[in-house]
C-alpha cells in the first residue's frame, strides 16, 4: 500500500462547507467579459486617437455592445441587434405568478422568442425600487427591452411548452395576422381562459402559425358589464400548465438547462427601426395630426410608411356603470433609428409627458378635450418580426 490512501487524505483535508454554484461561475465570467470588452473598447479608442490624432474623429466610428437597458433611443454607436429581421416563434405577456407578488399585483413580464434564438424581454416591477432584481435594467420602473440568445434546443423547449398548453385549449384559440400590434395587457375576450382569483389578473400568449398568430388570453373573473368580459373557466390542468409556462418564459435562467443557452449574458435590445407613434382623441386623419406637430418633425414623418391603429376605448365609471367616453386613433410611422433621433430633436421644444417618464420617450402634443386623453407622441422600438408594441405606462 502507498503511504497515502484516499481515506486518510480525506480525513486530513478540511470538510467542504459550500455547495456547487454554477450560476456564480457564469456570473463571474460575465463580469470579466464585460471588463474585457470595456478594455478593448478603451484600447481601440486609444489606438484611434493615436492614429487619427484627434478625439473628435472617434464620434463617427465608435460602436459598442450596450450591456444595460435604456428607455427611448439608444446611445449613439450602440450596435443594433442582428440580424435585422427574424421569425417570431412565441410572444408572451402578463402579470407573472412566478415572481413573488409584492402587495396586490405582480410584475409584468413580456417575452418575444425568435427562431434565430433571440429572446427579447422586458419587466415592470409592480413596486418600483432599486432592488428590482434586474442589474441590467434601465431604471426602477422598467427593465427596458433586453436580449439574450437561446440555442435551437432552447427555442424548441419554449415553443413546445406553449404548444402543449395550446393543444389543451384548442377551442379558445383566436388567430390574428402576424402583423397585429399587441397592446400591453389590454386583452380580454369571450374566448379567453378565466383563471382563479389567486392567479395574476391578465395575460396572453401567441404562437406563430405560418403568417398567422395563434393567441390564447386569460384573465380573472370579471364583472359581466365590463367591456370584453367573457371566457371559459380554466381547468386545474390548464392553470397548472399556465404556471409552468410562465415560469419558463419569466425565469428561463433558472428553468432552462445550460445547453439551451447560446448567450446567457443580458444586453440591451437595440433596434434598427423605430415606430414614432401619435395617439389622439377624438380621431383625426393623419394629415391633420401631422399639422399639430412642430414643422420639422412633420416634415421628417410625412411620406414614411405608417400603420393606423384603432387606439384605445376610453371609458369611465358613472353611477356604477361603465360608459364609453370615446375612442382614440393611433398612427405609427416607421423610421430608422438615426431618423428617429432627428424627430426627437425636432420635438425637444414640447413638454415631456410626465406620466411616461421611466417607460418611454414621450411628449405631449395637445391638451385633453372633453375628458379624453391628451395627444401624445412617443417612440416604440421595432422588433425583429417587424412589429412593435406599447411601452407606455399601464392603467
Amino acid at each position, binding site marked *: 500500500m502507498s503511504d497515502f490512501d484516499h481515506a486518510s487524505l480525506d480525513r486530513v483535508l478540511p470538510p467542504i462547507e459550500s455547495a456547487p454554484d454554477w450560476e456564480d*461561475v*457564469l456570473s463571474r465570467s460575465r463580469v470579466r467579459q464585460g471588463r474585457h470588452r470595456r478594455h478593448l473598447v478603451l484600447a481601440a479608442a486609444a489606438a484611434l486617437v493615436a492614429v487619427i490624432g484627434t478625439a473628435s474623429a472617434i464620434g463617427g466610428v465608435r460602436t459598442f455592445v450596450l450591456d444595460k437597458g435604456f428607455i427611448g433611443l439608444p446611445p449613439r454607436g450602440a450596435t443594433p441587434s442582428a440580424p435585422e429581421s427574424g421569425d417570431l416563434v412565441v410572444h408572451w405577456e402578463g402579470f407573472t405568478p412566478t415572481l413573488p407578488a409584492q402587495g396586490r399585483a405582480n410584475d409584468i413580464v413580456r417575452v418575444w422568442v425568435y427562431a434565430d434564438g433571440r429572446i427579447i424581454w422586458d419587466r415592470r416591477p409592480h413596486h418600483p425600487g432599486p432592488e428590482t432584481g434586474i442589474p441590467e435594467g434601465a431604471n426602477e420602473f422598467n427593465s427596458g427591452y433586453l436580449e439574450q440568445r437561446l440555442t435551437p434546443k432552447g427555442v424548441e423547449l419554449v415553443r413546445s411548452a406553449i404548444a402543449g398548453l395550446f393543444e389543451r385549449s384548442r377551442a379558445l384559440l383566436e388567430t390574428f395576422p402576424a402583423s397585429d400590434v399587441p397592446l400591453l395587457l389590454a386583452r380580454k375576450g369571450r374566448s379567453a381562459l378565466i383563471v382563479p382569483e389567486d392567479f395574476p389578473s391578465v395575460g396572453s400568449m401567441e404562437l406563430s402559425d405560418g403568417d398567422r398568430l395563434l393567441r390564447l388570453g386569460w384573465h380573472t373573473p370579471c364583472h359581466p358589464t365590463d367591456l370584453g368580459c367573457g371566457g371559459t373557466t380554466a381547468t386545474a390542468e390548464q392553470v397548472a400548465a399556465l404556471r409552468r409556462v410562465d415560469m419558463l418564459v419569466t425565469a428561463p435562467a433558472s428553468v432552462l438547462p445550460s445547453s439551451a443557452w447560446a448567450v446567457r449574458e443580458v444586453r440591451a435590445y437595440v433596434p434598427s427601426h423605430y415606430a414614432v407613434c401619435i395617439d389622439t382623441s377624438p380621431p383625426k386623419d393623419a394629415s391633420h395630426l401631422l399639422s399639430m406637430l412642430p414643422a420639422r418633425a412633420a416634415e421628417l414623418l410625412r411620406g414614411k410608411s405608417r400603420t393606423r391603429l384603432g387606439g384605445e376605448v376610453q371609458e369611465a365609471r358613472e353611477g356604477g356603470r361603465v360608459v364609453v367616453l370615446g375612442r382614440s386613433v393611433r398612427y405609427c410611422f416607421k423610421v430608422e433609428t438615426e431618423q428617429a433621433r432627428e424627430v426627437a430633436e425636432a420635438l425637444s421644444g414640447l413638454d415631456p409627458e410626465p406620466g411616461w417618464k421611466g417607460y418611454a420617450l414621450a411628449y405631449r402634443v395637445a391638451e385633453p378635450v372633453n375628458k379624453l386623453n391628451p395627444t401624445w407622441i412617443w417612440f416604440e422600438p421595432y422588433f425583429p418580426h417587424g412589429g412593435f408594441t406599447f411601452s407606455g405606462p399601464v392603467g
Partner: protein
Amino acid sequence: MIRRRGASLDELEALYRGRFAIFVRVAASVTGDSERAHDAVQEAFATAVQKRSSFRGDGPLEAWVWRIVLNAARADVRRITPVAGYAETGAVNGDPGPDATLRAALVLLPERQRTAVFLRYFADLDYAAIGEALGISTGSVSATLSAAHATLRNRLEEVRT
C-alpha cells in the same frame, strides 16, 4: 492524431458539478482554508469558461482545469497569508493520532510534492494529467511523488522513534 480545439460550456459544467468537492478540497491543500479554496475554484471555472476556446485538447479537459484551479489557489496564497494546516482533529490523551501525524507531515512537504500527492491519491489523476496540471513532464511527476513518499516516510519514522 486530430486534436480538438475548445471545450464546451456543457463539458465544463458537467466537470464542475461532478468534481466540485474534489476541486475545492485539493485547492484547500494549497490555500489552507476551504472558504478561500471555494472562491479559488469559482474564479478558476470562470476563467475556464472565458478561455474555453483556447483549450487545445493536448490532454484531458480535467487536467487543463486543474492547472487553472491550482494557479487560482496559488494566486490566493500570494495575496493573503495562508492559514496553516488542514482539518483540525483533536489529539486523544496527548497522542496526536495517525491523522494528525500525517497532516503535520503533509504540511511540511514542498507545495509541488503535496499537491502531486493530493492529485494522485485523492483526485485519482494519472501521471500525465498531473503533469499537465502542474506544468511538468510525466517523468517529473514520478520523481516528485517518489520524493514525497521518501520525505513522508522519514517524517513518520522520526515521529515513531
